[in-house]
């Protein structure tokens, strides 16, 4: 199939897709160290299963399924813990608008359930459609819509105090 050759040079595939895969995991597990581990586990799995990659979709989409599944499985094994400090890079809390917004976005993601975070990252970071997200999460597009609706309601609440109303109040389909 069209995309099978993408995985022939696995090292190049890794280097081309690594950061997006890491950020996908980070958006879901919300812990940099855990996200790095999950990403590595995902690549081990991807390498071992590369013969099963049918090539009917881009390699990165296939990889993201593995990353998301790994991330959610990892969170299932961990009981929810109270995060003592928000996730901010030590050297980046400089008060600039970009940093402030990043902190607000991450804090809002923290307020979502793991499956909601996965759906939000797949929809808004990767721009996948509902059918693709449904396949990745093992559910239906209708349920994806419900998950995203609930996530948007929560994001609206979480982000409203930190930003202008117009930026979030109309989050919709």
């Amino acid at each position: 199939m069209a995309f099978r050759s993408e995985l022939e040079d696995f090292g190049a595939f890794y280097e081309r897709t690594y950061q997006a895969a890491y950020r996908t995991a980070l958006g879901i597990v919300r812990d940099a160290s855990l996200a790095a581990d999950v990403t590595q586990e995902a690549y081990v799995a991807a390498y071992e299963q590369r013969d099963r990659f049918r090539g009917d979709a881009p390699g990165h989409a296939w990889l993201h399924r593995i990353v998301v599944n790994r991330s959610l499985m990892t969170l299932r094994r961990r009981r929810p813990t109270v995060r003592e400090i928000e996730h901010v890079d030590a050297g980046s809390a400089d008060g600039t608008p970009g940093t402030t917004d990043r902190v607000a976005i991450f804090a809002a993601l923290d307020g979502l359930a793991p499956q909601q975070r996965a759906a939000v990252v797949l929809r808004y970071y990767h721009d996948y459609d509902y059918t693709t997200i449904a396949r990745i999460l093992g559910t239906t597009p209708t349920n994806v819509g419900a998950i995203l609706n609930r996530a948007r309601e929560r994001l609206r609440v979480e982000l409203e105090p930190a930003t202008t109303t117009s930026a979030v109040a109309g989050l919709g389909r």
Partner: protein
Amino acid sequence: MTSDLDRDFAVRLRAALDGQTGPHPVWSEAPAARRVAERARRTRGRSLRLLAVAAILLVGGGAIGAILLAQPRPLRGPASNGWIAYRGDGLFVVREGVAPRRIVGVEEDVFTEDCPAFDPAGTRLAYTTYDLRFFEPTEPPHAVPAEGEPTPDPTPDPTPVPTPRLTPEPGSHPRQIVVGAIGNGGRLASAVAMLPAPDDLAACPRWSTDGRRLAYATGADRLAAVDMAGQVSEFGLAVRRTGLSRHFDFDWSPDASTIAVADGDKVWLVPTNGDDARTLPVAGAWSVRWSPDGRRLAVTVGPDVLIVTTDGSLVATVIDRDGEGPAPSWAWSPDGEWLAYVDGTKVVRVRADGSANDARPIGVPEDTDPQASLVGWSPAGDRFLVSAGGGFREPVTLLSVPVESREPAVVLVKPEDGYFGGAVSWQAAFD
């Protein structure tokens, strides 16, 4: 279409995540590369894996051969409220006075179960399984025996029990519809059917009102129904697609002769005898449900809910939000006299002809996020099922709320019980 404000959030999320950099961007330095090399040295025997798969298929084939084509029990008298099934990490059932118990799945397994649905007679439960090994087949196949020992009821018992689940061949078909007969304690006592389901399932399967078939829709614009023997009937439909999502919502008519479909644009009435489908003059239909008497349809259009006849004439606008915000979730009462929805911390009942309404407070527990929505109406018509919460630290709480009295809501599923929203089914019980 994605709104400007959606795009604004997407830009901000990308900026936030793109500002984060992972620690091992080069393959030669990656821990994964070392692990791959170590595993390669171990040279695990692929033939052993194939042998295991063959054994599973043998067991699965035998079990399929032993499938019981159970017939639905005819409905007798008014329904009482049975178990409530929901999806957590596996499938769970719960009822007032009995703690949630897992009836399908074990923690950290390789299956995702979803879409629990009790049949109209309350004797069987259908659900979908999704085999993660289809994409990530690194773990040994996991087969669960097809027979579970009945246990006394009611006794709260969260221990996983054997369930009627069979393992599809890795790499062949990742999704199936499983039908199990309900035993004591809401558990699945035996397998009734293992039915193939399309990978691109667009909405949860729904039982026909005679309990003989399950209808499903796919992202490829197919509407079909499968009976308990696996016989599939396809129904013709020419659905408009916007490209954003494969939205599809549908409902069987009470006499099982017609399926109403809302595709985000039109309402289709699709005869199940193969006749041509027709559309109703309702634009922007997002969800549709027949009234219990089959003479009317409730349709979500934008933020509003309309009651229309089967020829599309408007009877009433029962939920009118002046075009603001998303439509609330709503449900018909079992007698077809009312629709109910949640407005803030109240449940509102509206007569189906739009003539009257009343509201009652939900009584959400103080430590619960008051974000609430209606999940359903009990089969006996005396309780609302309401969900509240949904954040990471406050997962969804399920509440049973009395319809008539002002008694406080009963918490059925607590945040620690692992419900994160999604399909819920309330079993109708008949003496």
